[in-house]
């Protein structure tokens, strides 16, 4: 932490453009009518297709791989075998995470690329060729039940741990504060409860694909589908010098973090790169089933012991988990970050077995769900309104809000804002909580179903700039502006809010500013803007670059130009000649003199003055290119921003079906840059959260380890009729450490809401249900199964 003067939360929020609704995202029309080119649409001349052979079994080793008939299939150009030493199967940059190399002879989980890949003239030829391979398998022990894996002497992931089936070789303690044993001695009540959360899988919108080509001079073009463009540049750089790489980002179907978390985007790219390098033809790698590769951090068994007082204050929390979590922060990280609970402990055992080591899609779901379950259980045990229990325990790192605030005020944050209180006020009103909340099992609907409401709350966690980022601002010859970033499109609509920030800071019309979608051959590296902390991390670079660009324009607006023509110097006075930049300002793409606002010049005039006006020569406007780097604040304390969410359900006790009647999402975003986009993350994420909490689980065959529902017929992604009306509320307490006190929320709608139906179902029927709250789990809880 270096810069004590870097306090972007103190930066003044521009009075226009920031916070406005009703702007249209720059690519909206082309996306809507389907002319937007996605990576899977990219077609190159003489392109070949590459597909992996995918193992369906959960474990095994290839004893013998006969690809002789594979090679003979019409249209096959090359068969890439794992044991072909001339092929570079191991990357120096891209650590496979779940595999030692990209392709070898060993299967560790169902859905694994193994053995070989086929390069052919069409997908048909690939499919035909793959079928012709004859594989002799060595059956190896396979286990998809984590309890059995922990108890077993067989090894399932000897590549990760050659000694036993425990990750990190032992039980671990995570996130402890205080002394839970002591805490349990000094509280009014103790409850113990446990539940199971099933595995979810990312199901990105677009099957994973990558297009790569090398020409005969080693120049490379690559269309990468994923988040980690900077990494992929290094990856291609293992084949050719990086200055020969022309990186492209087409549009990408939403990935939500899954493919980067499980490295599938990297493996898909690697396949295209290898094939293209060998064949010297454009190669498109296609990995259809990739959508079902990947598990989330939430699955597993959670066992709680909680001590609390009659007034709702939670004194001690001891959580033991098997299988779940181990991603960023861990299960009780958000409980720790957002409450004053003084004694916390989380112990875990992470098993190794024949499932993918979980990653994240919409990071934070396990922590959000844990907080949800903790508070729902305590509130239920006390028969107390859970929103009240939340307020009583609000805080951070064991301290109360009152204890935390002085430091924050010292740091320059607004005093006297209580984010949770404000969120609750807005949310309870919008949701009509007072008429909907009731004791568990107390309300039956006219149609016989049981009515229930669920509530959860947690911190707004995307409030830190994780790292320094840079961006460039280009002012074009006609005075329009584009923002130079290394785009990594994974779906969210950042182009619009980022352009708003630049336009507002510069004093440009929003229509004159665009966040340029496909500029990769530049070093401006940002946190993948569509990733977890995009807003929090990237805003600093945007604001600083915009301010610099403005200052640059104002300087040139005062600077006379000299035009050279036919050996003569022709003076060209500046519109504000004789003035200094501090006397000027900008509004709506027009520069004006502050004390004489009718004295104006357009940005276009200033650029063209200095860029040359002779039509024979190039317009030289590069002096209007500026760039800036953000910093990391000196202090990044506990997040004080909050989010809280409400759901209303009807439980059919005959069939176990849980219908989601309505919902309300409330997020404190610090400062809202674009409320339409924020709402999009709220209701959009909620659909995913409800899918994960109320519908989806990956089902394995315990015998073979194969996945039984790895397709969109049997793995139910929710549709338009599956969730009732959703209201979205925005709170702005300027609580983040980013510019304007802004906080990101890309994960929150999904990650924080996963456990909501479990809480709501309890409120409906007075029984706790495992997650997802599917009919079988509900009926089991009702004792009917």
């Amino acid at each position: 932490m270096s810069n004590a003067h870097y306090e972007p939360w103190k930066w003044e929020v521009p009075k226009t453009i920031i916070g406005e609704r009703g702007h249209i995202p720059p690519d909206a029309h082309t996306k809507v009518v389907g002319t937007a080119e996605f990576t899977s649409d990219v077609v190159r001349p003489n392109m070949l297709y590459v597909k992996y052979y995918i193992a369906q079994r959960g474990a095994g080793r290839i004893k013998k791989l006969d690809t002789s008939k594979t090679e003979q299939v019409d249209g096959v150009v090359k068969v890439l075998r794992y044991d072909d030493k001339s092929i570079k199967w191991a990357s120096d940059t891209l650590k496979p995470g779940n595999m030692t190399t990209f392709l070898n002879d060993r299967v560790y989980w169902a859905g694994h690329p193994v053995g070989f890949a086929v390069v052919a003239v069409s997908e048909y030829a690939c499919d035909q060729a793959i079928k012709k391979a004859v594989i002799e398998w060595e059956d190896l022990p396979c286990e998809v039940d984590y309890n059995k894996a922990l108890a077993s002497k067989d090894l399932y992931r000897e590549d990760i741990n050659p000694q036993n089936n425990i990750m990190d070789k032992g039980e671990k303690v995570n996130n402890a504060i205080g002394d839970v044993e002591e805490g349990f001695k000094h509280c009014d009540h103790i409850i113990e409860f446990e539940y199971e959360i099933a595995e979810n899988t990312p199901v990105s919108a677009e099957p994973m694909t990558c297009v790569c080509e090398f020409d005969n001079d080693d120049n490379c073009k690559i269309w990468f589908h994923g988040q980690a463009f900077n990494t992929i540049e290094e990856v291609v750089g293992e084949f050719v010098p990086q200055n020969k790489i022309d990186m492209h980002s087409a549009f990408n179907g939403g990935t939500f973090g899954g493919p980067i978390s499980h490295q599938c985007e990297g493996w898909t790219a690697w396949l295209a790169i290898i094939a293209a390098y060998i064949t010297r033809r454009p190669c498109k790698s296609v990995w259809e089933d990739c959508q079902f590769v990947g598990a989330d951090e939430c699955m597993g068994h959670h066992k709680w012991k909680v001590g609390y007082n009659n007034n709702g204050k939670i004194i001690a929390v001891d959580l033991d988990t098997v299988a779940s979590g181990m991603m960023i922060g861990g299960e009780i990280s958000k409980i720790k970050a957002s409450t004053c609970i003084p004694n916390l402990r989380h112990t875990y055992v992470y098993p190794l077995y024949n499932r993918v080591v979980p990653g994240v899609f919409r990071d934070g779901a396990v922590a959000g769900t844990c907080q949800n379950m903790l508070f729902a259980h305590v509130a239920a045990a006390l028969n107390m309104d859970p929103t009240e229990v939340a307020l009583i325990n609000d805080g951070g790192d064991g301290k109360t809000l009152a204890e935390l605030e002085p430091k924050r005020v010292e740091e320059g944050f607004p005093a006297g804002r209580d984010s949770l209180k404000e969120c609750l006020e807005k949310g309870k009103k919008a949701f009509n909580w007072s008429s909907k909340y009731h004791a568990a099992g107390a309300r039956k609907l006219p149609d016989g179903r049981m009515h229930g409401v669920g509530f959860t709350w947690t911190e707004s966690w995307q409030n830190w700039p994780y790292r320094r980022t840079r961006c460039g601002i280009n002012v074009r010859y006609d005075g329009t502006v584009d923002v130079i970033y290394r785009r990594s499109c994974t779906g969210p609509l950042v182009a619009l809010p980022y352009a708003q920030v630049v336009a507002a800071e510069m004093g440009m019309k929003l229509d004159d500013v665009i966040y340029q979608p496909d500029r990769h051959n530049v070093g401006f590296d940002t946190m993948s803007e569509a990733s977890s902390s995009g807003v929090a991390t990237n805003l600093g670079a945007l604001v600083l670059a915009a301010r610099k660009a403005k200052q640059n324009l104002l300087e040139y607006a005062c600077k006379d130009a000299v035009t050279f023509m036919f050996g003569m110097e022709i003076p060209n006075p500046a519109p504000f000649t004789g003035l200094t930049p501090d006397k000027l300002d900008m509004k709506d793409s027009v520069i004006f003199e502050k004390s004489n606002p009718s004295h104006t010049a357009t940005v276009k005039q200033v650029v063209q003055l200095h860029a040359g006006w002779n039509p024979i020569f190039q317009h030289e406007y590069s002096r209007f290119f500026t760039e800036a780097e953000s910093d990391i604040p000196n202090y990044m304390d506990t997040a004080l921003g909050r989010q809280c969410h409400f759901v209303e359900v009807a439980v059919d006790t005959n069939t176990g079906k849980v219908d989601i009647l309505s919902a309300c999402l409330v997020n404190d975003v610090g400062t809202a840059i674009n409320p339409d986009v924020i709402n999009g993350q709220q209701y959009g994420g909620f659909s995913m959260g409800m899918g994960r909490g109320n519908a989806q689980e990956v089902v394995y065959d315990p015998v073979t380890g194969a996945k039984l529902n790895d397709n969109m017929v049997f793995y139910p992604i929710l549709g338009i009729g599956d969730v009732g009306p959703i209201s979205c509320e925005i709170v702005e307490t300027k609580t983040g450490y980013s510019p304007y006190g802004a906080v990101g929320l890309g994960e929150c709608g999904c990650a924080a809401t996963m456990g909501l139906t479990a809480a709501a179902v309890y409120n409906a029927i007075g029984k706790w249900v495992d997650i997802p709250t599917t009919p079988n789990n509900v009926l089991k809880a009702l004792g009917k199964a």
Partner: protein
Amino acid sequence: MKTLEIFEHINAKSFEDAVAALQKGNAEVVAGGTDLIGTRRFNVLPSNPATLINLKTIPNADYIKEEGGFLKIGALAKLEDIAENDIVKKKYAALAEAAHKTASPHLREMGTIGGNICQLNRCWFFRKDDNYYDCLRKGNTKTCFALTSDNRYHSIFGMEKMCAAVNPSDTAPALVALDASIVTTKRTIKAEEFWAVAIPGSTVLDSDEIVKEIQIPTPASGSKSAFKKLAIRESIDFPIVNCAVLITSSGARICMNAVHNKPRRATDAEALISGKTITEELATQAGEKAVEKAVAMSNNKWKIAATAGIVKETILAAANA
């Protein structure tokens, strides 16, 4: 996207045409194609017939009309057209509702009633790509993988011919409840007798036999029918369990599906409610009666309760129609 194997393709000009093509062997018919295309794309079966006989080119095979005391539906009638047809909605409500709840709007615009009642089962072992589970329904083995694995959605009424897969059709139980007959190129079969455990098929059809028409006797005026379906999602999903009920002045017909290899009449439940005023209590009892003979597999006991629930709710819906 995974690709289809090459096939020969014939456009049938008539049912006779199609039968003749079937009789040449190594051929199968295609109607809407929404089951067949997926079955081929994912290599569900060990092999596929080389020739596809397109039935959609047979003229006048998609009618929906009342005639001579029957509702007559051509086998090539689209599910969406059946669902939206005013006569069907009014007098054969269970069928309209069942057709409407089938699959998704696009699939209903492509899928036919003939195809829907002939569709293959949706057991996730049977359906796993590349014939990964070469089960008894594929014809090479005697194995049922559901017996020793996750069978949460499988049969709760035992295993006919050692198969635990359920029939996934939504229209099937409605046809049984409405006492339909299936007219083929060879014979007329009572709906109740139409389904079977075949390899890999789900019907009693011979290899050269094609469904031509569905006939439903027009229920007496005052009759009421309804259809209900339990699924995770509102749309797209196959049923976990569904049920169709017809209540007439003389009795009731209750048919469940997705609970057994074939649609299953709940005759004991029918007897219980026949001619009686339907109360919630009676409907509950009928639901329980309908599953009295159910036998759980290792992890589908919950489905027995869910079935009782759906039967109950369908009876109430029909009574209040």
